[in-house]
């Protein structure tokens, strides 16, 4: 007696449709699963056996062979419990084969027979739809997630018994409907709460507008973290494709907390004890790391020099290519990693270098050593360097609101539109993505701007390497200003964000 049912598994960020073939033979009772099952899949034997019994069906006393095809793909996760159980019921004759075909089953089984949710349902549904399947069965708690994919019919039976009865036509089960959350969740932080810090806020605005990476340096308690947390409030909202992509990543990583599509851009702030694998992804079956979880959003690294040098060095590739390639014995994967890097650091080990009220107790050598922990190539990929000052008491208690996020977001959105229009022929969205060629073609300086730039390079001894970075920032400043050509004021502001750290000029 043979039957088959469709299930799915995830590989990297994508779902794969798996054909579960079940064969029951008259022989000594054995239950075998073949087709490269990982431990979680191998263990599903026990769950499936108990679930079938406890749902009131007979588990065949015979030789049961389950094959997972394609056989060369490693199958991980507990989501294959349900198709295996359904296949068994069909092979045993409890449900007709026709009732289970053209459907995909995704879910883990409890011993009692309840259907439990698994991570990655969205990716699996998308893969199923691509394979031409339109009927999906999963746990009732994740039907909303599956329904983020358009044009599919999703059912959420609460247990195996209900599923079987429905497939037999004994009970009716309406397809699930999407529960739209009332509205996009309002962010609970706002730039209006940041008193003073006009320059730092301005830098954040430029970073958001051009998607530039930022390094903030300032004494402890100057509000670096506060500023960083608020940058997501001024970034333009994600398009539906972007949101779906990000939701898919979170779904596969098992981090999706809401049932809804993600509306706000991700903000990830890993602690400085993070490992290399935690940061860029890894494991024997590579899992997405922080850079991928920050895709389309912000990666915030507080206390940058405290991060292990090895972790900072691996950031160079994703910053450049906007994706990470991870190769392991079992798999070689590419994860997206298009994020804005916001880093924060103290100016010196004691934190008070350049502070007007505290004396810095570090020697020149201490500061040099501290700053050298950050490698030059990483600094080269940071366009904006901002020094954040500690706010004065008067600023903290001021009742005047700072510029609210909504106003900044409006300017940012306008600047982004200009960039997207200008860079559309190269398929780019923002200034930070520009290469040397785009800089040459799109960043036109007027006469005064050219003059001041030449003077800056001669007198402030800037390196050739910093040229493109400076122009890109000036281009973003001009975009915020609504100007077509880069003027002297724009160059001047861009110059003020250059790297001025001790022992690391530009």
């Amino acid at each position, binding site marked *: 007696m043979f039957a088959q049912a469709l299930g799915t598994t995830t590989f990297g960020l994508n779902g794969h449709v798996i054909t579960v073939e079940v064969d029951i033979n008259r022989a000594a009772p054995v239950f075998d699963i073949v087709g490269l099952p990982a431990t979680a899949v191998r263990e599903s034997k026990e769950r499936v056996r108990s679930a079938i019994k406890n749902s009131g069906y007979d588990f065949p006393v015979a030789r049961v062979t389950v094959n997972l095809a394609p056989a060369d793909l490693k199958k991980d996760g507990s989501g294959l419990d349900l198709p295996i159980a359904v296949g068994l019921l069909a092979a045993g004759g409890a449900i007709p084969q026709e009732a289970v075909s053209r459907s995909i089953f995704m879910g883990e089984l409890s011993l009692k027979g309840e259907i439990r949710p698994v991570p990655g349902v969205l990716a699996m549904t998308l893969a199923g739809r691509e394979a031409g399947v339109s009927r999906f069965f999963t746990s009732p708690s994740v039907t909303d997630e599956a329904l983020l994919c358009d044009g599919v019919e999703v059912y959420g039976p609460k247990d195996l018994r209900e599923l079987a009865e429905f497939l037999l036509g004994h009970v009716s089960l309406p397809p699930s409907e999407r529960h739209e959350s009332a509205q996009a969740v309002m962010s609970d932080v706002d730039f209006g709460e940041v008193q003073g810090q006009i320059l730092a806020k301005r830098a954040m605005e430029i970073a958001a507008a051009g998607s530039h990476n930022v390094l903030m*340096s300032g004494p402890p308690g100057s509000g670096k973290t506060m500023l960083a947390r608020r940058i997501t409030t001024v970034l333009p909202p994600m398009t539906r494709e972007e949101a779906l992509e990000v939701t898919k990543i979170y779904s596969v990583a098992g981090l999706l907390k809401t049932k809804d599509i993600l509306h706000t851009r991700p903000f990830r702030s890993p602690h400085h004890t993070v490992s290399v694998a935690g940061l860029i992804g890894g494991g024997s079956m590579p899992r997405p790391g922080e850079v991928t979880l920050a895709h389309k959003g912000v990666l915030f690294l507080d206390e940058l020099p405290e991060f292990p040098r090895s972790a900072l060095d691996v950031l160079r590739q994703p910053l450049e290519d906007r994706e990470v390639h991870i190769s392991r014995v079992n798999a070689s994967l590419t994860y997206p990693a298009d994020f804005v890097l916001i880093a924060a650091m103290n100016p010196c080990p004691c934190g008070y270098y*350049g502070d007007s009220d505290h004396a810095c107790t570090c020697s020149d050598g201490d500061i040099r050593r501290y700053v050298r922990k950050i490698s030059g190539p990483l600094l080269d990929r940071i366009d904006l360097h901002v020094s954040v000052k500690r706010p004065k008491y008067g600023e903290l208690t001021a009742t005047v609101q700072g510029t609210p996020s909504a106003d900044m977001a409006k300017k940012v959105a306008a600047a982004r539109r200009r960039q997207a229009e200008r860079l559309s022929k190269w398929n780019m969205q923002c200034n930070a993505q520009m290469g040397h060629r785009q800089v040459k073609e799109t960043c036109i300086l007027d006469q005064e701007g050219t003059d*001041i730039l030449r003077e800056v390079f001669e007198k402030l001894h800037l390196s050739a390497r910093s040229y493109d970075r400076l122009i890109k920032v000036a281009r973003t400043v001009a975009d915020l200003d609504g100007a077509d050509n880069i003027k002297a004021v*724009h160059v*001047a*502001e861009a110059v*003020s964000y250059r790297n001025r750290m001790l022992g690391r000029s530009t």
Partner: protein
Amino acid sequence: MNIWMAALSGSPGLGGKTIRALTAVFGTAEAVWRASAESIRETRLLSEKKCVDFLDYRRQTDPHAMGEAMFRAGIRCCTWKDESYPSLLKTIANPPAILFYKGEAPLWEKSIGIVGARKSTAYGAQTARRLGEELARADVAVVSGGARGIDSAAHEGCLTGKGRTVMVAAFGLDLVYPPENRRLFCRIVEEGGTLVSEYPPGTPPLGRQFPARNRIIAGMSRGLVVVEAGNRSGALITADFALEEGRDVFAVPGNIWSAESVGVNRLIRSGAICCTGASDILSEYGWDKGKEGESESTVPELTGEEELVYRFCCIGDEASDEDMLQQSGLAVTKLTEALLRLQLKGYIRESAPGRFIRTGKA
């Protein structure tokens, strides 16, 4: 070049005094080097231990090879009998028997030493740079120790003023200490200055050599300016040497609350000449003749915003861009432009990220 003298100076335990006494007995340095062990013992100038050390050293050293190595490194030397030995230095109590130098011969008419703390504040570095530049313009050679902080700022200022600057090292001239000053030392040699040391090439920078070096700084200078010195700064040792040799000591007053200024303010209290600019030094020696015609301060040509920003950047105390922004009410773009233009014109300098200070120009 006297390679025998150079070789003698490298011997452990032989100071300027002993070398001079030995050459007085034997006539020349070469004669000392070639003298028999007995004849050296007979002079009774060396203790037994020092004598053994010297003889050991003499066996192991080839003066010709040493001279060859010095030639290749561009290091020359002069003894206290030579023309090229600085005349001021001959007058101190224990002048070095030999001076190694790199660059121009250490001969100049007017010289002033500038010393101060290694861990300088923006104010101190700014002052040292300014003094160095002004002295250079008045044709005065600036002597300092090539250390971090005030010393480096003084050298840099002097190079900016296209003057001669002299770095007195406490180590062999084939080494660089502190390592980050490699570029500065090269510039000094390239731009007509001199690196000087009493130690032969290969001598590492040992702690005890620094006070000895300070006596040469004091000895080579007509006057000594202490720019910034904490309670126990090495600059105060240099000032003591200068007083012992009868040189004038100038002190730049510092912030009374600042720990970096405790030492220098104490110098003023005990009678050092208060120095608030190069003119105080130049007038002391009558070196400012004929320079009166030049008006000291020309009003800088600034736009309204630049003028406003320039006023915020007071000399001596840095102003932060954030403060200026909030107090002036200027827009960010206006402020950054004014700051950049003032920097390009040379009126202000960014002393630390986001902190600005006047350069004192105009």
